């Protein structure tokens, strides 16, 4: 029976996640279906709740929700983007819940950004939550609403607060690690915004996927930081990339728009309660990512 609903199934993480499940277990959902699926796929804009009714029969079977669908606009302009962040993330989630009468478990992909600027590193789950953009605010508010809903409906509910995920090759991804790799592979200087000395515990895609699967298996309520165990600076990352490619390309520095700060999450709670065990070191992760670029024939394609 297809009883696991994965929203954001066409997204960068969703696309990989769906492959980890038996096709007879899952239902995909996204605004567009980007690739052929051998499992049921609901192509819908969740903003429009009424359309969900058409899928009533399929949705009634759903017991487990893996909720990845979300906007990625991290604008700080409340006037321009505030309402959209609420409609697209919060109302969309409520529309979905309205149509899942037999739900027993939710795993929700949130973000380290809900914390705002860290008061102290590494950041624990009990750190204060002061979002600094519309994306983070809507993620936090969705967390809180899902928590109330789950308590009222007696549903298991896990919040995964992801650190930046890397290891995906896509023209849409503009984060530090892939942009450094792309530049160095092209023999160009990677651009570092700020000093390059601040640390992040980036998480490799396979470990992020593992966290989601573990959360479904272990049914542990609460919020968990999901990040890597290494906390490299951008300078260190560039060093690792150079070494892996046998290159010696220096970065160019640009002023950062925002004040820069390290952001390292403490993942002990996820390790001990969720039994999440990230396995990929930053060095291995970068090597694997470079391998993916090679496999994709990077240079001709991008």
């Amino acid at each position, binding site marked *: 029976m297809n009883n696991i609903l994965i929203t954001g199934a066409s997204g960068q993480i969703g696309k990989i996640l769906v492959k980890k499940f038996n096709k007879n277990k899952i239902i995909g959902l996204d605004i567009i279906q980007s690739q052929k699926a051998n499992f049921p796929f609901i192509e819908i804009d969740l903003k429009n709740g009424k359309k969900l009714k058409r899928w009533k029969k399929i949705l009634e079977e759903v017991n487990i929700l893996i909720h990845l669908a979300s906007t990625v606009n991290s604008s*700080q*302009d*409340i*006037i321009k983007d*505030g*309402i959209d962040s*609420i409609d697209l993330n*919060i*109302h969309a989630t*409520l529309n979905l*819940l*309205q149509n899942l009468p037999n739900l027993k478990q939710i795993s929700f992909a949130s973000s380290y950004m809900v914390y705002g600027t860290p008061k102290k590193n590494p950041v624990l789950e*009990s750190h*204060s*939550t*002061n*979002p*600094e*953009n*519309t994306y983070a*605010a809507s993620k*936090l*508010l969705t967390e*809180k*609403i899902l*928590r*109330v*809903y789950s*308590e*009222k*409906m007696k549903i298991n509910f896990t919040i995964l607060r992801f650190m930046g995920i890397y290891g995906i090759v896509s023209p849409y991804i503009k984060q530090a690690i892939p942009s450094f790799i792309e530049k160095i592979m092209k023999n160009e200087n990677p651009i570092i915004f700020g000093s390059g000395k601040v640390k992040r515990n980036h998480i490799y895609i396979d470990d992020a996927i593992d966290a989601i699967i573990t959360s479904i298996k272990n049914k542990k309520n609460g919020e968990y930081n999901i990040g890597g165990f290494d906390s490299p600076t951008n300078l260190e990352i560039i060093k690792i990339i150079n070494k892996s490619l046998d290159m010696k390309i220096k970065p160019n520095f640009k002023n950062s728009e925002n004040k820069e700060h390290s952001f390292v999450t403490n993942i002990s709670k996820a390790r001990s309660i969720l039994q999440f065990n990230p396995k990929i070191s930053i060095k291995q992760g970068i090597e694997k990512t470079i391998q993916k670029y090679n496999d994709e024939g990077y240079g001709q394609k991008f």
Partner: protein
Amino acid sequence: MMKGMDKNFKNKIILVTGGTGQVGSFLVEKLCKKGAKVFVIGRDKNNLKEIEYLVKLKKVIFLECDLTNIKDFTKISNSLKKVNFLIYLSSELNKMEPDIIANASDAIDLNVKGVIHLLKITPNIKGIIYASSTSVYGKTNKISINEKNITNPISFYGCSKLGAEKYLDIYCKYNSILLNVLRYSTIYGPRNRTNQIIPILIKKALKNETITLSGKGETKRDFVYIDDVIDVTMNSINNYQNGIFNIGSGKGITMYEIAKTILKLTNSKSEIIFDGISNKLNFVANIEKAKKNLNLRCKTNIDKGILNEIKWHKLN
């Protein structure tokens, strides 16, 4: 009261949302006395209640607007261009509809989206006071809750209040506007039209109906009297500073004590019974920060406060 205070108000063009409610109506009266120019937004111009006389005297400009209706906003936007100070008091209280998703959706629409829509039509605001609620904290085991406590609301209402705080915080930092968040605990006293515990008990006591308390009536809550709330809210306008402040009495009082006090003050023959199911929803606000920074003083004792509320209910 500090000297030179009134000057502070004469320069202000203040918009009060929820200006016909309990806090709103008392506050609007005070602001008018101080010489502030006051706009009030409300849903129904035929239901101005205690501020009707001020609208008639043209001391208050009333704008009819439903904060969830975008069409209404365009109607009033011209009038609000000059507003330089916002006091946001409107709120959608916990509805008890059977459809819990609809409850969540309504709370988000009024309490979060309503705030953002309003910010769009008030581009010249320099300061905001946002009336939040201690319901943002949720269930807790601690005896006294300060502003740094973790926020895990147990109601959609609490979620929406917390959400609005967060969106406002981003807006105010981005636009260099001062934001003062007042997390009110349960307010009581005259003009209390809510369906919270004190008015419910008073109405039952006046009709000599049986009163049922959860558990053994041992749940402790923090009740703050309306006059004390108004005073501290006025102080916060006057002595304006960024921050989040608990506004309560700082004292826990059990439901049983409240019920007994109400029965005594109404000479009621109501009987108190206990359902034996403890709800474990104790809440007492730590109010040290507001005492220190906003000069919060809880002058009204609970007996006198409840007596004043009883008198009001008898007349209304």
